[in-house]
């Protein structure tokens, strides 16, 4: 009987994770395998759940600020910004323009560092080790720059309600400009080492195609969506902060495959460099904090939804206040949550090697999903 059953069973189960080199965090994907091909897949999440939403209900508005550096630790400043924007909208605090500029500069630097890390880790998934160290070399410069003014290198907690606590100095500006020209000189290296590599193109072209319909139904946002050719970038379509003052483009893909998502991210780094450059040129003089921000913040009753474009897509905060010193309810709409939920569709009937390429191309930060 056992033997008979064994013959009939065509598929077997493979656990990709929770500890696996390709999941970049504690994500577990149960794969039902038919030989090297995936018949079905189910992501299992929650290993890194820290109850950030419950924590919000137990802390005052200011006390919750550091949490925002720890949800998506790779683009922490965008999360900082979104939370500050939500509270500022609720309380009507006006942020001085110079502070907005500093927010944009630092947030875009952080976006580049996030994309660089993705770039390196993604090629590691594809079996190329060397680009990882090249882009970490570049990323190090960003971390040093941000370290100078924010005081931390990864889990930033820099923005405050009404502005930023520390002004940028000449050294930071000069360092940022030097970094811009440095990174621009590296594009050629990246192109010849990776983007034009035949093996790389064979591995990524026409793999893991995500249609615009799938993206719409699953609420996929960010570079993953733009890889499918939809020009949706919250910095452009729902302008926040001082983004409307800058001239930049939204890179788009055509086929929606892994290669498109890769190219979109690489081009986005260049666009971020353009934004930073313009912001440094136009940086206005003035205060960096709003006047009279109450120490004991008690926003009026009401609810607000703010969204920002992070390196991974739309991050939204739905904040409900009942006029208390603590939020009544704070929902974090995290981009990776929706971006991962589309994964089983992309995994249908692909090989394990492609599954790794697709999973990596979605640029997931697992603690972001688990919150």
């Amino acid at each position, binding site marked *: 009987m056992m033997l008979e059953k064994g013959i009939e069973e065509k598929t077997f189960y493979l656990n990709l994770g929770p500890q696996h080199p390709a999941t970049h965090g504690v994500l577990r994907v149960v794969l039902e395998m038919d030989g090297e091909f995936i018949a079905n897949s189910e992501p299992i999440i929650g290993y890194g759940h820290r109850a950030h939403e419950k924590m919000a209900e137990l802390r005052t508005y200011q006390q919750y600020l550091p949490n925002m550096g720890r949800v998506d630790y790779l683009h922490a400043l965008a999360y900082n910004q979104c939370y500050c924007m939500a509270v500022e909208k609720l309380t009507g605090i006006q942020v001085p323009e110079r502070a907005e500029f500093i927010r944009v500069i630092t947030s875009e630097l952080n976006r580049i560092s996030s994309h660089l890390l993705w770039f390196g880790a993604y090629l590691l998934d594809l*079996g190329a080790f060397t680009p990882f160290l090249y882009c970490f070399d570049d990323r190090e410069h960003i971390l040093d720059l941000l370290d100078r003014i924010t005081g931390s290198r990864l889990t930033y907690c820099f923005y405050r309600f009404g502005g930023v606590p520390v002004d940028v100095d000449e050294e930071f500006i000069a360092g940022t400009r030097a970094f811009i020209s440095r990174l621009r000189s590296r594009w050629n290296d990246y192109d010849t080492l990776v983007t034009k590599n035949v093996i790389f193109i064979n591995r990524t072209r026409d793999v893991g195609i995500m249609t615009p319909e799938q993206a719409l139904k699953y609420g996929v946002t960010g570079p993953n969506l733009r890889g499918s050719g939809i020009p949706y970038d919250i910095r452009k379509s729902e302008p926040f902060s001082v983004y409307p003052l800058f001239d930049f483009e939204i890179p788009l893909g055509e086929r929606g495959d892994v290669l498109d998502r890769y190219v979109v991210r690489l081009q986005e780094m260049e666009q971020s460099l353009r934004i930073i450059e313009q912001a440094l040129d136009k940086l206005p003089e003035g205060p960096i904090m709003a006047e009279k921000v109450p120490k004991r913040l008690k926003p009026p009753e009401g609810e607000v939804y703010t969204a920002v474009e992070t390196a991974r897509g739309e991050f939204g905060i739905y904040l409900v206040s009942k006029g208390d010193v603590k939020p009544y309810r704070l929902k974090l709409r995290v981009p990776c949550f929706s971006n991962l939920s589309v994964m089983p569709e992309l995994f249908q009937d692909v090989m394990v090697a492609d599954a790794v390429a697709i999973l990596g191309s979605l640029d997931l930060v697992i603690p972001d999903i688990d919150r």
Partner: protein
Amino acid sequence: MQFLLAEGARIGISLIGVIGLVSINALFLIWMERKVSAHIQLRPGPMEVGFHGALQTIADALKLIGKELITPEDADKLIYLLAPIVMFLPVLVSFIVIPFSPTLLIRDLNVGILLIFAFSTMAVLAILMAGWSSNNKYSLLGAIRSVAQTIAYEIPLLITAMSVIIMVGSLKLTDIVAYQATVWNVLFQPLAFILFIICGTAETNRAPFDIPEAESELVAGFHTEYSGMRFAIFFLAEYTNMFIVSAVATVLFLGGWRGPILPPLVWFLLKVYAIIFLMMWFRWTFPRLRFDQLITLGWKILIPLSLANLILTALAIKIF
């Protein structure tokens, strides 16, 4: 009686020599791999233990010796234990026929090249044993991939070697070296040389053909469950295989020990390590191929090309 004694002493010394060479070669190659990869990646690599980290591998080997040997609970224990040995022994046999210099070789067999290929094929058996017996799906997938890959790449490897062999007219490695007294074979057979290096890289399971142990997909492939010295033996075998493939390539295409001024042994080792350096360079530059692309490359490109090369060689010999 005297003959037996002499032969016994010869075997003993050879064995010690081979094991010594294998160990020193592996120690050197691992250090070299680290240094090469480090400099490709703009970092210094190991610097602490010894001069520029030269003793780092010895420290690592000591650490590995001290590690616990883990056997998975549901493993097929006998096969599990045998696999590293089966992996390593054929590697030693190949050294019998490699001519390091006109005088330094153990046995000048007239089927030398055949012996090397015959025994190097056994490595896939060891991989299959390791993958099957570990009772781990990642190991099994790695082993299955390895079998398919070895078959796809052994054929072009043999056919390209054949091109040289029909030119020389002998399977004996010393004859092949003697044939290249004036001109190296690589000038007659440039395509065969390139094919041989590609197939050799695949044969040793090195990136970009490291599908059986593709880290990001299969954790560590067939040797996922091995720890301590058992793992070290797989590691040792990988680097020794690299040495053998490069040594065969040197003999077949680069004139073996031949070269001006320097002693023959130095020339031989220089050529071997130059090819190994090339293979390391591949590994730290290219991403990994996908499994089906690898098989397609083997069957649809490398085998037809090597066959065409063989036919052309045969025709050329017939005509000239």
